[in-house]
């Protein structure tokens, strides 16, 4: 049984130069976590930060903290060439819990999600069915976080509903 929860979270997209110490330090100071520079990994404290590309990250945090975090980031990176965008309205976060999740995702995702390859703290952007998604393995329980664009979320939920006997819940955190 896979449990699917839709979670109200906030999202910040961040672009900057990972090679610039001022940037990494600024991010760490603002968010209280290490900038993940290894591809396909995430780092976590009170919020999660996903590596999306060599100069792109995504912060996932409590929705109510987003304005504060935005401000902190802007202040910490004020003189740098960066791009900070609130994407909270454009993303839907799902948490999939249960031992069968990799099996379920394998029906429509070409990533190798075998735990020996894709462990806790790993993440990847890929396709799930016909939607683009960001998948993070966030808890050994196991829990997988799936982030999808809002306009594709109904489609993705439909796909999940058809492909798993899942319980849907919503939660705010």
């Amino acid at each position, binding site marked *: 049984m896979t449990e699917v929860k839709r979670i109200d979270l906030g999202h910040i997209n961040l672009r900057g130069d990972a090679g610039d110490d001022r940037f990494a330090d600024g991010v760490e100071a603002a968010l209280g976590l290490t900038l993940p520079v290894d*591809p*396909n990994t995430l780092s976590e404290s009170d919020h999660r930060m996903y590596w*999306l*590309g*060599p100069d*792109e990250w995504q912060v996932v945090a409590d929705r109510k903290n987003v304005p504060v975090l935005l401000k902190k980031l802007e202040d910490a990176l004020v003189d740098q060439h960066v791009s900070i965008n609130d994407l909270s309205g454009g993303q839907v976060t799902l948490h999939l819990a249960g031992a069968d999740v990799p099996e379920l995702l394998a029906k429509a995702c*070409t*990533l190798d999600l075998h735990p020996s390859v894709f462990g806790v703290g790993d993440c*990847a*952007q*890929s*396709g799930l069915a016909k939607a*683009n998604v960001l998948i993070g393995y966030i808890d050994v329980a196991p829990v997988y976080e799936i982030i999808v664009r809002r306009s594709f979320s109904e489609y993705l939920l439909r796909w999940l509903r058809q492909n798993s006997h899942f319980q849907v819940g919503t939660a705010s955190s």
Partner: protein
Amino acid sequence: MLLISCPYCGARAETEFSYGGEAGIERPKDPHALSDAEWADYLFMRKNPRGLHTELWIHAQGCRRWFKVERDTVSYKITSSRELSLGASEKE
């Protein structure tokens, strides 16, 4: 289905990528100095080789970075996959 190595994200299925055509076509510095024929050459004429081809791909479902792939157009074997900034020789 090809297996393409994104220089940033690693090997992924072809479906995560989009093809961008021949690499190394440089936009003329001053298009208006070109004859119509020279402009047409830039716009439309392509190497289209039977054999090794240096081409652009973007990891569209991943990191959205463009990169350069050397691929044999007959065997489809990929011999290299590099960031654009590396091997800048493509832009003579």
